């Protein structure tokens, strides 16, 4: 064992009741196969995926359903075999309760896999191929934010990643999904980490686990024994040590710069669940179609963890864990600190780690907010060293520039400030609303700028067109003036000498062969005869059996030949 890693402290933080023991007694269970799965096209940060299947298609488990659109997007695969029932707006796990476009899959109960392509020896592959494999498996960060993993691995190609941090802190009360992942799949998680190491070639790998998970720490230590680069680091239990920036600070003592990425200080952070998904994608060839979800809360008869298929409706998982409807007060997706109330019709997506069916005692309705007494407890609790109290005043006054000056965007919305607030002010809601307003204003500005450019370009275009028209008009006027002058000059000349016009006339005559009135009549007669003949022939083509028409055509042919001959004779006489 190498030297002990020094643990650093983060500012602030709180110690809420953990409530983790309830859901860890039953291992990771397999819920029944749902009859209908809802697969939203947006399960990650970025651009929604684009469906490649149609309604009515039969798909196999693991088959590609939707492709990623650009780098900030993620592919989507069928979690089981079945038929595509619908593609359109469907319930979506979002705080707004709004629906989002989704692929709805009716399972056929066979759960038949598509042919998988596992990689026998990932060490033989270069990192670009491996990252492509991870992108094709549709892996996005499973800790909560859902950043596409392949893009994260390539986020700063010019920065060397010295430290790979595996986030197993899981600091939020009630949630045990990562804990159970590490306890039950330690070897797979470590292989996943080794694959990430092969891609990133870091100098050290630190697995940060809060010391309230001794089983997970022991399991991971044993699984990682053979690899001296990987070190399991137990960290003191404190909320929110599992925040990406906080964990980096605890393990390395360095802070991610404001507005920057961990890669800026040579660190990359991945969740344990993501490491497991990486293992499945490379070693088994399986795309990301299921994840460990904690089902917990006082309203459930048997709180547990499940390996749930992505797209399983929340209500079915709750039924599996024995939901007692009369005790349910609030259904939360995520933990009690950062989670949000969710519609039970919505499905589990790639980022859903916990379902908390809380009773009235567990998550009581917050008392009405009282005025801020400027006690400063929130500033002491803030892990990002912000001034929540000041931010709250600025948000109330809608002073957006001031909010930005006080680094509102460094707020990780952990809720520690609201937790300690004696006036129970919903501080985080102020900050979320403030962030939303600022983003909307920025968007408006971008749009205004775009509109201004388009408006100016349009004006320029109209001006150009007007100038062009003016130029054309002038050119035409000049031409007309020239023609008029020429004509006048000619007329003047004609009056002077009658014969002087002859060269012009001769030229005109040479171009247009002139015919005498007699010849003209012959030509017209020939043309008429030809027309009559053609008309009769057409009629004959339509009714080939008509003998009258046949006779008529013969006559007309003769007439035409005569007329033509007469005309030609007349013209040739003239020429000779």
């Amino acid at each position, binding site marked *: 064992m190498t030297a002990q890693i020094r643990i650093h402290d983060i500012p602030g933080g709180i110690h809420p009741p953990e409530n983790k023991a309830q859901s860890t007694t039953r291992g990771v269970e397999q819920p029944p196969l749902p009859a209908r799965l809802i697969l939203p096209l947006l399960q990650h940060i970025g651009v929604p995926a684009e469906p490649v299947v149609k309604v009515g298609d039969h798909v196999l488990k693991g088959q590609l359903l939707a492709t990623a659109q650009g780098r900030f997007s993620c592919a989507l695969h069928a979690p089981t075999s079945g038929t595509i029932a619908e593609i359109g707006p469907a319930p979506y796990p979002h705080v*707004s309760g709004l629906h989002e476009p989704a692929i709805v899959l009716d399972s056929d109960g066979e759960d038949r896999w598509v042919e998988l392509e596992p990689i026998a020896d990932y060490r033989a592959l270069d990192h670009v191929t491996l990252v492509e494999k991870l992108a094709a498996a549709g892996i996005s960060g499973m800790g909560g934010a859902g950043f596409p993993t392949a893009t994260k691995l390539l986020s700063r190609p010019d920065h060397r990643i010295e430290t790979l941090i595996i986030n197993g802190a899981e600091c939020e009360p009630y949630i045990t999904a990562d804990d159970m992942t590490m306890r039950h799949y330690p070897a797979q998680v470590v292989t996943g980490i080794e694959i990430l190491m092969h891609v990133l070639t870091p100098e050290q790998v630190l697995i940060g686990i809060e010391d309230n998970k001794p089983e997970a720490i022991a399991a991971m230590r044993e699984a990682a024994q053979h690899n001296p680069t990987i070190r399991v680091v137990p960290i003191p239990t404190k909320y929110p040590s599992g925040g990406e920036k906080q964990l980096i600070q605890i393990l390395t003592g360095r802070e991610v710069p404001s507005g920057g990425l961990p890669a800026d200080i040579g660190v990359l952070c991945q969740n344990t669940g993501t490491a497991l998904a990486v293992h499945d994608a490379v070693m088994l060839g399986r795309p990301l179609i299921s994840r460990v979800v904690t089902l917990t809360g006082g309203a459930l008869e048997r709180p547990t963890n499940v390996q749930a298929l992505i797209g399983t409706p929340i209500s079915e998982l709750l039924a599996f864990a024995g939901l007692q409807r009369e005790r349910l007060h609030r259904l939360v997706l995520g933990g009690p600190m950062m989670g949000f109330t969710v519609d039970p019709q919505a499905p589990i997506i790639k980022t859903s780690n916990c379902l908390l069916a809380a009773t009235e005692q567990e998550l009581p309705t917050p008392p009405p907010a009282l*005025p801020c007494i400027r006690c400063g407890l929130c500033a002491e609790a803030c892990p990002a060293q912000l001034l929540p109290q000041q931010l709250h005043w600025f948000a*109330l006054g809608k002073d957006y520039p001031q909010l930005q000056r006080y680094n509102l965007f460094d707020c990780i919305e952990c809720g520690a400030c609201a937790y300690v607030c004696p006036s129970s*002010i919903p501080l985080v809601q102020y900050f979320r609303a*403030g962030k939303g307003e600022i983003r909307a204003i920025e968007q408006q500005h971008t*749009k205004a700028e775009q509109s201004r450019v388009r408006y100016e*370009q349009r004006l320029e275009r109209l001006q150009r067109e007007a100038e062009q028209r003016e130029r054309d008009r002038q050119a035409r006027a000049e031409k007309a003036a020239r023609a008029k002058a020429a004509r006048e000059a000619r007329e003047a000349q004609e009056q002077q000498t009658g014969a002087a016009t002859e060269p012009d006339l001769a030229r005109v005559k040479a171009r247009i062969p002139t015919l005498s009135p007699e010849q003209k009549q012959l030509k017209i007669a020939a043309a008429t005869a030809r027309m009559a003949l053609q008309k009769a022939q057409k009629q004959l083509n339509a009714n080939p059996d008509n003998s009258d028409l046949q006779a008529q055509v013969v006559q007309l042919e003769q007439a035409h030949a005569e007329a033509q001959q007469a005309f030609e004779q007349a013209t040739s006489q003239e020429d000779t």
Partner: protein
Amino acid sequence: MGMVLTAVAVLLLLALVFGALLGYAAVRFRVEGDPIVDQINALLPQTQCGQCGFPGCKPYAEAIANGEAINKCPPGGETTIQALADLLDVEALPLDGEHGEEKPPMVAYIREAECIGCTKCIQACPVDAILGAAKQMHTVIVDECTGCDLCVEPCPVDCIDMVPLPVTTRNWRWDMPPAPPLAAAERGAA
């Protein structure tokens, strides 16, 4: 006497030197255009709707720079008035109702089945956000539409609707919590 002459001569010299310096600076550091107009224009919403009575945002910005009231822009609403008031250091007036009311952002929608392809809306659109050709169906590029209403009037078959921008999970925003009540002492006093 000599002293006075020297003083006059020195002052004259100084006046000439500084005059020359100022004259040079005026040419060398000449400011092109009117920067205040651009600053005002940057705060306006650029819908080019003409509700203010000017033929676009830039002309209104020029008018404001020449003393026009700052409360004639309904699409910008209170936010724009406040920003203009801050920039120009004048009092923020409430929006002038005569020019219209503040509305949520809208986009034009062409009922394509009814469109006869007359191109009148295309000519009216200040930001070229309508796509189409003569006797071909037209459609609105939603991302470019400023919701200015100018295409609605020219349409001979009234097939253009102004619809509010749809709310999705990506443009949905948290509401501000309701303002907290007054402190108990103040409540007692009130």
